[in-house]
């Protein structure tokens, strides 16, 4: 084993090698360190930002829920307060706190304000801090128009203590008086607190509640009590464990967060691969000097440790830098984007980075280990190589290695294909990602063999320059394969990502077009519980001059499963037939409408999450009673990940008696001016500016802009992958060029023009990168199929149609090939700056 002397020897060798490396190619080492740093930084930043946001999200939800054992939750429109009386009288429960929780529409604002109507006296048992916080205002809050705002709500609405502001109830504005602002620490989210009596009165919810927080008498089994309670609750009202309530908020964004983490992991892998290729090149380039060291008596173990040590130093430096960078990124993201990494569901104000030392250490170790592994493979190969063969040179034994790696590659490809067929694991596309990793590595392992094959079938062109180039590549197949692998890994990932994003965008666009056939769209603020148009309001809107047709819709939330986010119920279309025609149905064809029960159309996520199938009878709790519907079809809904159901307005009215609406589509008369119509519609209401009115084109543009914003970070990661890939290519090229100085010298002696040598190098670069790009395109397309049909479907529970961004890919391919050629030329020039005479004299 390791004697101290042996270790000292390895250390001495390591120092000599590393210093020599650094003297020789400081730029390459720097870039390698940076690449690792980038991977670690991305990983750490995504983790920290998500962690901070989730932490804040979680504790915010926890504060909202307080110390309840069970939460009774009804639909937004609530249940009778008699239920509260029953539960409060029930001795099973030590405390019962009634809540009316509403998303309140604000005039002229797209965002709603969450308002909690509570009975402070009863809430005190479950949320003692709340009463402490309200303090002074507890009794003043009894005034009907009084509200307390959380500090973030005050900030967002630019309100101060003593100000008044308007909310929209129905189509009428009502004024609230800001009694005070809660301290920063109490609620991080934007919300308002009112007395329950005032909330019921202000929001026309007399007699209604939609939430009751319960605490059990000590000693009761919470789960048993919750199940017993559930039996007694009306349809659509659920007894929920608070943990479920907390988890739900977090799980909504889980798929998105996992996807981001995966991307960060890809960046880290790319960094590790760069270490691998850098170290492989360094080993190849120094083959003879390493062999010389072996000949001089350095043991195999010493050499291997010295080489791994080299990689580890790069890893340590890169990881350390990466952790610092990651912290910086995270702080910047939190400040600039309020913790939202793009999908708009995790917006948290006031989240702060807790530089948890353990996760940061984990990222540091990950980066270092990745670099160590990247260095270990070539180090082992170098140490195992008999010195005599190294001194002679040549990659003669490579085909054997290539054959071996090819068989593993084929096996991995097979495994990948199998993995892609597996369903989601706990709602996450774990196997999809495993399939991608498996396919990617499998395909890379096939590269050496394919390179050998491809080069052997390359026809002789009788052009000395090209033929020599091909022959050179064939000879140094290990280097060529490495260089290729760099391109293939990064380019295929980029292609896959580009195809996925493009497919999504195309499908999304088509969906928008299908869903927005009318000229204009109007709606009350999205997700609000208070603003709507009564039947009379609807007639007033319809009477506006210039409108040829107006269709109204009603949306509301339905909580079908307490563990999941509520499902959106959309009532649209006067009749079932009309509804079916308006929806972007899947498997389009004309589906016969069922005659035995009212039809509903479910979004794909309802199939994936709740297991509903075409033709199923489903029972929906509407107005406290269960109604039976038949699933008549499935439609694509990109707007609501947690699922949605559509039924005709008549079916909805039959079930609920509600003929109000909160969204609408407008077709204009020929020649009518959208602006004039919009103004006329707004003029029908006292605070008409609260209605969102957009032309369908503007809405589509806005939606696509939001889409692009959401994918911005994806594009950034793509770019990084490509840059890292190009770095790999450039390292391979410059290292090859340096190794071939003598060869260039000889060729110059026998009369090859400088230009011809450059052409030869460019040719090599083009051949390599063209092959890599072609391979990357095929592999990337395969990966994109997994992304589109497996990862996307399992993450978001909606389907998208595959679409290939041909132009984009072509431009990228050409760019990459040109870049590779330029890199090759540039490194060739650098190598030839030494004169030919000296080069041929160097005994290589």
């Amino acid at each position, binding site marked *: 084993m390791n004697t101290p002397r042996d270790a000292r020897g390895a250390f001495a060798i390591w120092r000599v090698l590393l210093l020599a490396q650094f003297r020789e190619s400081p730029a390459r080492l720097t870039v390698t360190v940076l690449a690792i740093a980038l991977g670690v930084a991305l990983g750490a930043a995504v983790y920290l930002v998500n962690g901070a946001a989730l932490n804040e999200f979680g504790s915010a939800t926890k504060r909202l829920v307080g110390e309840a054992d069970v939460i009774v939750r009804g639909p937004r429109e609530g249940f009778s307060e008699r239920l509260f009386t029953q539960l409060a009288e029930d001795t099973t429960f030590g405390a019962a706190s009634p809540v009316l929780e509403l998303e309140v529409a604000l005039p002229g604002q797209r965002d709603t304000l969450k308002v909690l109507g509570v009975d402070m006296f009863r809430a005190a048992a479950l949320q003692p801090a709340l009463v402490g916080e309200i303090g002074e205002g507890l009794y003043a809050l009894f005034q009907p128009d009084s509200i307390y705002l959380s500090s973030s709500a005050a900030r967002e609405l630019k309100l101060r203590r003593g100000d008044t502001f308007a909310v929209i109830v129905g189509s009428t504005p009502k004024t609230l008086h800001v009694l005070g602002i809660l301290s920063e620490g109490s609620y991080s989210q934007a919300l308002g607190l009112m007395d329950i009596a005032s909330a019921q009165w202000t929001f026309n919810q007399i007699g209604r509640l939609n939430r009751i927080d319960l605490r059990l008498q000590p000693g009761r089994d919470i789960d048993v009590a919750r199940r017993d309670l559930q039996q007694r609750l009306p349809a659509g009202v659920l007894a929920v464990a608070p943990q479920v309530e907390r988890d739900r908020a977090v799980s909504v964004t889980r798929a998105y967060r996992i996807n981001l983490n995966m991307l960060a992991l890809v960046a880290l892998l790319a960094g590790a691969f760069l270490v691998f290729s850098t170290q492989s090149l360094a080993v190849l380039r120094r083959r003879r000097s390493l062999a010389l060291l072996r000949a001089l008596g350095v043991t195999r173990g010493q050499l291997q440790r010295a080489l791994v040590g080299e990689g580890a130093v790069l890893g340590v430096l890169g990881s350390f830098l990466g952790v610092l960078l990651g912290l910086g990124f995270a702080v910047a993201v939190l400040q600039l984007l309020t913790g939202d990494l793009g999908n708009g569901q995790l917006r948290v104000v006031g989240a702060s980075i807790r530089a948890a030392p353990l996760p940061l250490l984990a990222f540091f170790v990950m980066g270092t280990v990745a670099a160590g592994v990247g260095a270990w493979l070539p180090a082992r190969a170098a140490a195992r190589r008999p010195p005599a063969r190294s001194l002679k040179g040549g990659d003669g034994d490579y085909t054997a290695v290539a054959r071996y790696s090819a068989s593993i590659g084929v096996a991995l490809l097979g495994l990948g294909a199998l993995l892609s067929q597996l369903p989601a694991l706990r709602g996450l596309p774990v196997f999809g990602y495993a399939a991608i990793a498996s396919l990617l590595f499998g395909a890379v392992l096939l590269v050496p063999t394919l390179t050998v094959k491809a080069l052997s079938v390359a026809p002789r062109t009788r052009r000395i320059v090209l033929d*020599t180039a091909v022959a050179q590549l064939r000879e140094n197949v290990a280097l060529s394969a490495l260089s290729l692998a760099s391109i293939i890994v990064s380019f295929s990932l980029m292609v896959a990502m580009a195809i996925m994003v493009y497919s999504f965008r195309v499908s999304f666009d088509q969906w928008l077009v299908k869903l927005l056939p009318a000229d204009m769209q109007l709606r009350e603020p999205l997700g609000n519980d208070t603003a709507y148009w009564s039947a009379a309001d609807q007639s007033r809107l319809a009477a506006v001059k210039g409108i040829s047709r107006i269709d109204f819709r009603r949306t509301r939330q339905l909580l079908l499963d307490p563990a999941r986010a509520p499902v959106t119920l959309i009532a649209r279309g006067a009749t079932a037939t009309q509804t079916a025609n308006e929806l972007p149905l899947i498997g389009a064809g004309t589906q016969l409408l069922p005659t035995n029960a009212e039809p509903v159309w479910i979004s794909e996520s309802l199939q994936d999450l709740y297991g509903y199938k075409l033709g199923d009878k489903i029972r929906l709790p509407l107005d406290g009673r269960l109604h039976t519907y038949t699933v008549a079809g499935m439609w694509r809904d990109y707007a609501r990940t947690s699922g949605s159901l559509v039924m005709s307005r008549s079916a909805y009215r039959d079930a609920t008696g509600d003929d109000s609406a909160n969204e609408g589509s407008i077709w204009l008369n020929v020649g009518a001016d959208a602006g004039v119509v919009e103004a006329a519609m707004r003029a029908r209401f006292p605070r008409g500016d609260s209605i969102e009115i957009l032309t369908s084109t503007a809405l589509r543009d806005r939606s696509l802009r939001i889409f692009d914003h959401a994918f911005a970070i994806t594009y950034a990661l793509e770019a990084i992958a490509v840059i890292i890939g190009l770095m790999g290519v450039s390292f391979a090229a410059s290292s090859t060029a340096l190794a071939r100085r003598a060869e260039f010298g*000889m060729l110059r002696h026998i009369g090859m023009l400088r230009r011809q040598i450059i052409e030869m190098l460019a040719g090599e670069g083009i051949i390599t990168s063209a092959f890599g790009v072609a391979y990357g395109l095929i592999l990337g397309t395969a990966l994109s199929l997994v992304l589109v049909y497996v990862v996307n479907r399992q993450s978001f529970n909606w389907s998208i149609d595959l679409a290939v961004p041909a132009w984009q890919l072509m431009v990228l391919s050409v760019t990459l090939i040109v870049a590779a050629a330029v890199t090759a030329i540039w490194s060739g020039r650098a190598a030839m700056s030494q*004169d030919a005479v000296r080069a041929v004299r160097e005994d290589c």
Partner: protein
Amino acid sequence: MPREVDWTQPLSVEGASADPVVLRLERLSKRYSADRPALFEGIDLELRQGEYLAVMGESGVGKSTLLNLLAGLDQPDSGRVLLGGVDLSALDDDGVTLLRRRAVGFVFQAFHVLPYLSVEQNVALPLDLLGVREPERSRRTTEMLTAVGLAPLALRYARELSGGEVQRVAIARALVHRPRLLLADEPTGNLDARSAAQTLTLLREQVKANAGAGILITHSRTAAETADRILVLEAGGLRSLGPGR
């Protein structure tokens, strides 16, 4: 770019007359740097068609520098090099390269045979550079490989050959395009005694058969003996040591 070569006049050099003088050095001087003494000063030399000359000298005396000046790979401080009557100093780098491509063949101490090309491909490199087409290319290559005794190994790769065989490949490559001048720089420096003797014999035969003239640079008296005439490069200039074999 390479142009069609008239192989009926294999030894002709574009722009040069059919001068029997293959190489002429006029008052050639070279120093490494201003603060060091000149390697040589005012060298005059004439090499005629069919001559095979050996240049001897101790290490560091400037043998290789002289060779590089002859091939246009280095510029003299003063004096002229005329290759087939063409003044090298009058040509730019591309001009010299094209001239070298046609008129000069090289044999190096370190062989410099491309390991990733087959023997045949290595030998054909100069023809490829000159744009010689099939079947002439194959005919000439085969002829040359036969001449050096490597025809059976034509499709082998250079790395599979022994040192002596590799140097024979180098000799074949140096002469395949029938250059006016062959330059051999310590061609046996990396070979054992037996291979060295064989190589020197082969080199002499082939220079006589396929080149206009040849210069062998060596520090070995035995090697020099294979040439027609031996010169010694000493501090300052060339001294004749009389005829070789």
